[in-house]
């Protein structure tokens, strides 16, 4: 059928820092050394916490959690680009970004050990939303946060994350469509780590890229190498600036790999080869960032060792604090059903407390 073409689209791809640590000179944003070093430091800290959490979990000292290894180069640079007042809206694999924005390590540990206390921030103005376990919802929240920024003409932006799997949910669609219609200051980053538990990217959707899903909402799209912190820096930076200028939302696909199990309850051997994993480890972001820093001669083995010691000490301290027994009233949930006390809830609290005393409620 002959036809005239009425709209054309393309999906750009950006990689700046190659796996061997060399940067494309034309594209390299030329970040100051202290920024680069801070970025690498956050990556190391996130990795160290992640590794420790896995150990704690295996020792029965922590609950189920989703390891982040391999995805540090996405949320960390993105979070570093944010300003006070911006909203950080994670899914559940943005450990590094959360730390950058100011979430305490102990909060992360509390959260994954079954305590709501882990969602309580030192200051709510940090504007880090709690983990959205139900996938897709957070994109709708982020659209609303972005609308509110627009409403208040505050110049704030919302930065939201979702996985490759999450793009199939209705909430992704509805949230991005709203942001598009509103031209709201929302930057959405798909962390395409190739897997949604056992479902490979190829079975998640038939689209050639995930970035192109943004075409459906009339927004600029870009696919980047998500193991490349410089590409993330440049693409997210551009998107944030566009959003701040009132030019609307952007969808970014960051291509990466989930190096570890989905959560500690998962066994990837059921569905993928060790060979695939091994190849992915060769592309992982910390390695190439370190090489880049070494090439720039602002890093060496001594400094690396000092950093490893430093992050280990921070993690040790956090774990120690986390494991210090705390006064956490068992009846706290009764305090937070509603903002004002209600007699039904208070009656049930009395019943609950009486049961605890009698040992009844514990079965």
């Amino acid at each position, binding site marked *: 059928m002959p036809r005239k073409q009425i709209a054309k689209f393309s999906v750009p791809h950006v990689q700046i820092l190659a796996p061997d640590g060399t940067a494309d000179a034309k594209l390299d944003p030329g970040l100051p050394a202290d920024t680069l070093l801070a970025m690498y430091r956050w990556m190391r800290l996130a990795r160290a916490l992640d590794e420790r959490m896995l150990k704690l979990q295996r020792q029965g000292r922590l609950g189920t959690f989703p390891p982040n290894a391999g995805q540090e180069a996405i949320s960390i640079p993105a979070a570093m680009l944010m300003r006070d007042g911006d*909203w950080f809206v994670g899914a559940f694999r943005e450990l590094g970004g959360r730390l950058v924005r100011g979430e305490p390590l102990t909060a992360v540990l509390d959260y994954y050990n079954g305590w*709501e*206390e882990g*969602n*309580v*921030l030192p200051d*709510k103005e940090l504007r880090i*939303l*709690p983990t*959205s*376990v*139900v996938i*897709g*919802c957070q*994109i*709708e*929240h*982020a*659209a*609303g*946060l*972005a*609308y*509110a*920024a627009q*409403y*208040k003409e505050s110049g704030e932006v*919302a930065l939201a994350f979702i996985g490759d799997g999450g793009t199939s949910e*209705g*909430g992704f669609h*509805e*949230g991005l*469509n*709203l942001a598009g*219609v509103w031209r709201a200051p929302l930057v959405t980053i798909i962390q395409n780590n190739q897997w949604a538990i056992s479902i490979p990217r190829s079975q998640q959707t038939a689209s050639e890229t995930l970035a192109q899903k943004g075409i459906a909402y009339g927004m600029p799209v870009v696919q980047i190498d998500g193991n490349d912190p410089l590409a993330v820096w440049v693409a997210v930076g551009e998107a944030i600036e566009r959003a701040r200028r009132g030019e609307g939302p952007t969808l970014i696909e960051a291509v990466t790999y989930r190096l570890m199990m989905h959560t500690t309850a998962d066994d990837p051997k059921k569905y993928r080869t060790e060979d695939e994993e091994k190849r992915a480890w060769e592309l992982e972001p910390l390695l190439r960032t370190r090489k880049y820093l070494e090439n720039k001669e602002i890093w060496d083995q001594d400094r690396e060792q000092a950093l490893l010691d430093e992050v280990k000490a921070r993690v040790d301290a956090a774990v120690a604090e986390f494991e210090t027994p705390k006064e956490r009233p068992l009846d*706290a*949930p009764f*305090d*937070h*059903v*509603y*903002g*004002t006390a*209600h*007699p*039904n*809830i208070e*009656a049930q609290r009395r019943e609950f407390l009486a049961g605890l005393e009698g040992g009844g409620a514990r079965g």
Partner: protein
Amino acid sequence: MAKLNMVQAINLALAQEMANDDSVLVMGQDVGVDGGVFRATDGLLERFGQKRVLDTPLAESGIVGSGVGMALAGLKPVCEMQFSGFSYMMMGQFEAHVTRLRARTLGQLNLPMVIRMPYGGGVRALEHHSESREVMYAHQPGARVVIPSGPRNARALLLAAIRDPDPVLFMEPKHSYRAFREEVPEQEETLPIGKAHVVQEGTDLTLISWGAMMRPALKAAARIEKQRGASIEIIDLLTIAPMDHETIAASVAKTGRCVVVQEAPRSFGPSSEITAVINDRAFLYLEAPVKRLTGYDVVTPYFGREKSYLPGVDKVAQGIAETLDF
């Protein structure tokens, strides 16, 4: 004081609170230029502008989900679901976030938002425009479900809901939208969320209802009072969840008999909960079983058959008489 119908009273509450408080906005399908398919938001766009009166795409989950975001950022969105029959598309957001964000953060975050939606039958509409499913929401911890029964309490409760730091699901009995008018004071008036209203005191029987069913309930009570000289205490529930156990228990402890009139299907309906509360709190006072007059456990019929499926005055009167005679 003006005589307003319920839609006008709702419109008044919205307009007043938008004028009072810049952080209040309304959003939903057709709430702007069209003024809402029932005209509940009529005139708001002209008065408050596009930023505060948002005509949204067709996306129930998106409307509520972005409302959550706005509320987190300190706005007070009043989200409209065009009909409760489409609200199930946002159940994920409601269950996972609207009801829980406060608890999740041990009170650090809260959601000052309202979700309004027309519900219930009797307007000869297409499928999915006639259901009463308040329990699907009311059962969820953290949910607050409010159902007004007339123009004046609709206005007062909606004002209270918007001002509340926590979310309120505000279900409007669409059959009552234009069914009658009441004096609604221009001056602000609120009613507490979580409190039932004793419409009339009495000693022989407690009659409990809410929403559009208050009308047949009141008529039936008047008929039986006249016919038999019985003294009937009438309770308008107003808030379905959390339910006002005190008012119910105190009344039934006094009367010993209770009839509940509910439009929703019988099984797992609010009247079952009311029966259970009475069982807990007033068992020894009961002189007759609690009578539940309800919709049936059948898929809501299309409007060709609908009318015979709604509890009406005769049915309520008969139920009251049987309970008095038990």
